[in-house]
């Protein structure tokens, strides 16, 4: 279960200035105080998601989709508001950098399995499935760095899927891999829904959101513009003057 009430997130942009530069401007009599800029990434977002529901988060770039997912994942703490998450969260955000390139694929699976909350024995059981799902049977002992971008995305997605216990957060990763892989992803997502797992999917692909999600949330500049039935929310998104 995911419940957010009036959740806001502000980021302070810290000007990076060296001590030497500060001293120099001080010597010249220039105002030495650094200027801090505040950006509101999320503004009083409220939503409620029951167990087994799939939510699509849509909106233009910079609307706050990734920030929302990071708050649900526990990576960021909101500046204000209340939130409650029940269940283990598995997140697959930005797959390109979600692997350690210097260790083997096998070691990556064990490391990420532990991060996602699995015991060694559980990872052993799921190991073959993860490799098979990602289609990387021939590369298990190879370092992750040799994998192509698509292969890395497939592996990261596969780890996320196989290690998900209750809640799965996906940020644009459904597009990973070729059409065959996408088909398999769809099948797993449908299975997840049957297994009462909660999915939050942030995507620009409205077709995928329409096909998979029970509900959708439209964000723009950190604010909720619409929240409800997917078709209606997608319709509102399409009416936005600038996407």
């Amino acid at each position, binding site marked *: 279960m995911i419940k957010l009430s009036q959740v806001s997130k502000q980021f302070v942009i810290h000007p990076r200035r060296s001590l030497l530069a500060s001293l120099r401007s001080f010597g010249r009599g220039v105002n030495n105080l650094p200027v801090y800029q505040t950006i509101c990434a999320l503004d009083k977002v409220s939503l409620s998601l029951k167990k087994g529901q799939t939510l699509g988060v849509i909106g233009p770039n910079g609307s706050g989709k990734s920030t929302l997912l*990071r708050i649900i994942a*526990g*990576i960021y*703490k909101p500046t204000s508001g209340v939130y409650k998450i029940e269940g283990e*969260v598995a997140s697959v955000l930005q797959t390109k*950098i*979600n692997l350690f390139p*210097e260790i083997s694929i096998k070691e990556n699976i064990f490391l990420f399995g532990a991060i996602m909350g*699995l*015991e060694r024995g559980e990872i052993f059981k799921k190991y073959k499935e993860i490799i098979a799902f990602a289609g990387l049977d021939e590369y298990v002992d190879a370092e992750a760095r040799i994998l192509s971008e698509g292969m890395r995305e497939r592996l990261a997605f596969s780890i996320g899927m196989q290690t998900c216990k209750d809640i799965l957060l996906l940020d644009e990763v459904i597009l990973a891999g070729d059409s065959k892989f996408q088909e398999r992803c769809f099948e797993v997502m449908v299975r997840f829904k049957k297994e009462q797992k909660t999915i939050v999917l942030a995507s620009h692909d409205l077709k995928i959101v329409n096909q998979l999600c029970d509900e959708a949330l439209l964000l723009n500049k950190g604010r909720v513009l619409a929240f409800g039935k997917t078709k209606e929310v997608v319709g509102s998104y399409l009416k936005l003057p600038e996407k």
Partner: protein
Amino acid sequence: MEKTIKIVDRKYINILREFTLFVFKSREQGTLLGFVWTLLHPLLMLIILYMLFSKRLGKGIEYYEIYLLIGIIQWNFLSTGTHEGLKSIMKNHSILRNIYIPRTAIVVSSVLAVFISFLIELLILGGFIIFSGLGFSPALLLLPFVVLIQLIMVISISLVLSCLNVYFKDTGYIWNIILKIGFFITPVFYSIPMFISKTKMTAYFLNPMTQLMIFMRQIIIFKTLPPLLNILVVFLAALILLAVCYSVFKKLEDGVVERL
């Protein structure tokens, strides 16, 4: 969402184990000699310092080569451990930004990876002890406790340094200078009474590294137990340091992730 991490949490321990193995393996990744480098460094230091100081500063110190090796190994753990800890958050910024991992686990496992090397160095020290004919005594049973105190200290310092390094990029440079000064004001290659008066000695003994080196040397070379009160005081100081550093880390950690 409340993500309180208990030290006995099973998930936390699993992450710690896997991440420690990862850091340990990746430290030597791509090098020809691999793990041997970790051992070569203290041995090389031993040869250099022994050649330089055995005739002067080492004069009158029993088993000076063992005395020196203990100092080098302990100092090496402090220096490398805090350096790895300091870099740990920055090094893993992309993972920290995209997956929730208890941040303390990243820092602690970076230190633990160095701790494994430290333990192996201690085994080599054991070889030196046998080779030199010094032999072992029952006092050695207290050694794990001294090692534990140092581990607590290194983890505590690393927790604060790892956060500061995100806020101020100069932290690494400043810590390097502090370590360089520390190397000379800690009796790594000399014994304290040779240099200072008794009143100044108090200041020296406030340095916990001095105390830890004295404990270890007393156990290994002099085969006697250090005064238990002294050990308890240092242990208590290490626990207080850990409590302070942990609370500082907890205060800073959310801001740290946002700055990555």
